[in-house]
């Protein structure tokens, strides 16, 4: 092995892949039943970058040569950068050797499009196939589905990969037209539709025949870039919601646009990455998936943008003061989940614990409730309750004053949700 050459390729092709923010390696249930190498289940972050993002997978491009010229992408044809390409075997060796040292959960392989969609997809599939069949590798494999690749190849990809994804990139069709005129949104949606149907079909099959092979057990995901085009949060979240509902997506990733290219259609190079906005979008996404919120409750015509200075749950609560206060010792789990300062785990603990006796502030604090926020919205077994005549705006000011330094200086991150 030529170590220097590989090192060089790795740095070029990892660098080009890093703007794809998806790092998840969870949601699969591939077991190590053949006494081979690895398994894929909960997904572990093996390290964190200096910007605080999870490093879970070896995330690389097979090549950064590309025939397209998407404005937002560093690998676009017209960009004057170093190009490189891995061989199939090189990717396999890197994956296995990183995996055996417990550096990674598996491989996330994407690629620039060289020659055509099928040619590219075929190489990606070859890597996955080699890992699974020749190396008995049961770790996580995420393949990018290349828009326009044949159904045959997509089907094969699903047999080896845990997850497949097509990046929508732009939240709306107009955004895509503007920045990637030679791409067509329908070409991205087609493989999603195909995979969705195939996944459902294979699940049915698996119910009937236990031995039926796994097919993309961790489902599909996608990514949208935010801040490159002028879409509102309402448009972004509505579109995410649409894909969750219609394509059974496991995750939508929001990637704050990092200005790496000068192009008059794009934000200037010195624009800062919209990290707070990105974080707010993830919080809103969680509210939709785990907290029983409807997208329209979070953003709507009257409220098309997420508040940047407070999280979307608090923002919803102060716009809906008529729903509060709720009695923590009586309210349904669904309502408790809507209280700012109470997460899923605390909510469940509350519902368990109150069977043994009514809970007071001290107990709630111990359970993990952030009483500083929750106290404006609940009553409990303590006589003290915040004056009921506070307006939503007052509450916002109080909470902000208390947590000011924390919120404004230290930009919140996607893992630290509520």
């Amino acid at each position, binding site marked *: 092995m030529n170590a220097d050459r590989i090192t060089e390729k790795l740095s070029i092709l990892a660098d080009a892949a890093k703007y794809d923010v998806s790092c998840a390696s969870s949601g699969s249930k591939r077991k190590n039943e053949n006494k081979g190498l690895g398994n894929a289940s909960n997904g572990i972050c093996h390290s964190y970058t200096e910007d605080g993002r999870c490093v879970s997978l070896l995330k690389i491009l097979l090549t950064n040569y590309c025939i397209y010229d998407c404005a937002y992408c560093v690998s676009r044809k017209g960009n004057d950068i170093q190009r490189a390409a891995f061989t199939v075997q090189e990717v396999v060796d890197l994956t296995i050797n990183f995996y055996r040292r417990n550096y990674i959960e598996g491989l996330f392989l994407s690629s620039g499009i060289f020659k055509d969609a099928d040619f590219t997809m075929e190489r990606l599939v070859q890597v996955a196939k080699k890992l699974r069949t020749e190396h008995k590798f049961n770790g996580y494999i995420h393949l990018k589905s290349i828009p326009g690749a044949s159904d045959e190849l997509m089907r094969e990809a699903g047999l080896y990969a845990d997850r497949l994804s097509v990046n929508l990139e732009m939240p709306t069709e107009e955004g895509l037209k503007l920045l990637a005129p030679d791409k067509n949104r329908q070409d991205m949606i087609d493989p999603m539709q195909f995979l969705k149907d195939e996944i459902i079909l294979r699940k049915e099959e698996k119910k009937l025949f236990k031995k039926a092979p796994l097919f993309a057990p961790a489902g599909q995901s996608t990514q949208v870039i935010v801040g490159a085009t002028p879409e509102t949060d309402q448009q972004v979240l509505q579109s995410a919601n649409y894909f969750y509902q219609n394509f059974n997506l496991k995750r939508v990733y929001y990637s704050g646009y990092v200005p790496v290219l000068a192009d008059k259609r794009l934000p200037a190079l010195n624009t800062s990455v919209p990290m707070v906005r990105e974080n707010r979008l993830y919080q809103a996404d969680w509210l939709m998936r785990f907290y029983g919120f409807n997208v329209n409750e979070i953003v709507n015509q009257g409220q098309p943008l997420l508040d940047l200075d407070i999280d979307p749950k608090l923002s919803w609560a102060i716009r809906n003061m008529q729903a509060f206060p709720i009695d923590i010792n009586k309210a349904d789990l669904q309502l408790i989940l809507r209280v700012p300062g109470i997460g899923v785990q605390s909510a469940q603990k509350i519902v368990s614990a109150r069977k043994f006796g009514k809970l007071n502030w001290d107990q709630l604090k111990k*359970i993990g409730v952030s009483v500083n926020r929750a106290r404006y919205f609940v009553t409990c077994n303590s006589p003290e309750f915040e004056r009921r005549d506070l307006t939503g705006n007052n509450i916002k000011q109080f909470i902000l004053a208390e947590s000011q330094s924390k919120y404004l200086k230290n930009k919140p991150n996607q893992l630290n949700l509520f």
Partner: protein
Amino acid sequence: MTTLFYDGTFEGLLTVIFEIYDRKLSVVRLFKGQQQAGAMFGEKLDVITNEVYATRVLKGLRKKLSPNGVQRLYIAHMAEMDNEENNLVGFIRYVFDSAQNIEDDYGNRYVIRLSEIIRMMRREKHRMEAFVRFQKLKDDTYYASVEPDFNVLPLLIRHFKSRYADQKWMIYDLKRSYGIYYNGHDTQFITLDFATVANPGDVISAYTEDESIYQHLWKSYFHSVNIPMRKNTKLHVRHIPKRYWKHLTEKI
């Protein structure tokens, strides 16, 4: 107030509970180790671990707690956290003094403390599953040194055994001076004699040739995926506290 001393084992803890009820003690303090002559007031008692008593208490616990509840108690004790014994005793007494199963009574200070300990243990276990960095030795064993905050090695066996079923590996806890070794079939606990050297990693210079290449590739990968425009050191350090760095290939 009675001060009790025990040997630090789980059976020992259960024996302590037996003594508390047998002797009808009300206010107690529990310490690991043996009585010291001198300064303490009140009664003192060395509890000698007794398997029969311990088994009786365990049976009682099994009646009052779910299997998971018993396991959580066991893990909380295994953690070997300083000064938590009294909370565990408080928890067990609360179990026996209540008519119903109280393991979900998070309004109770002992129950919530137990759940905090379990959470800390679980977090440390996850960290180890993430931060173990194997280095390949010439005999094809993959070796890693760790220094976890709590005693979590026994909790790691299942994960590493099912994941790395086809390679020999060893994870060694330098703080507690023992490790687990998997020979391709079974795991066993082992102790190595590194008496005079601080870091066994330095002693075992028997790495394979490509070990340094892959370490180098990993470091360079780690460097490449960083996006400088998003730098957030505070967050970085919160995810990987500095005390873990010395065993992380990419941070050395």
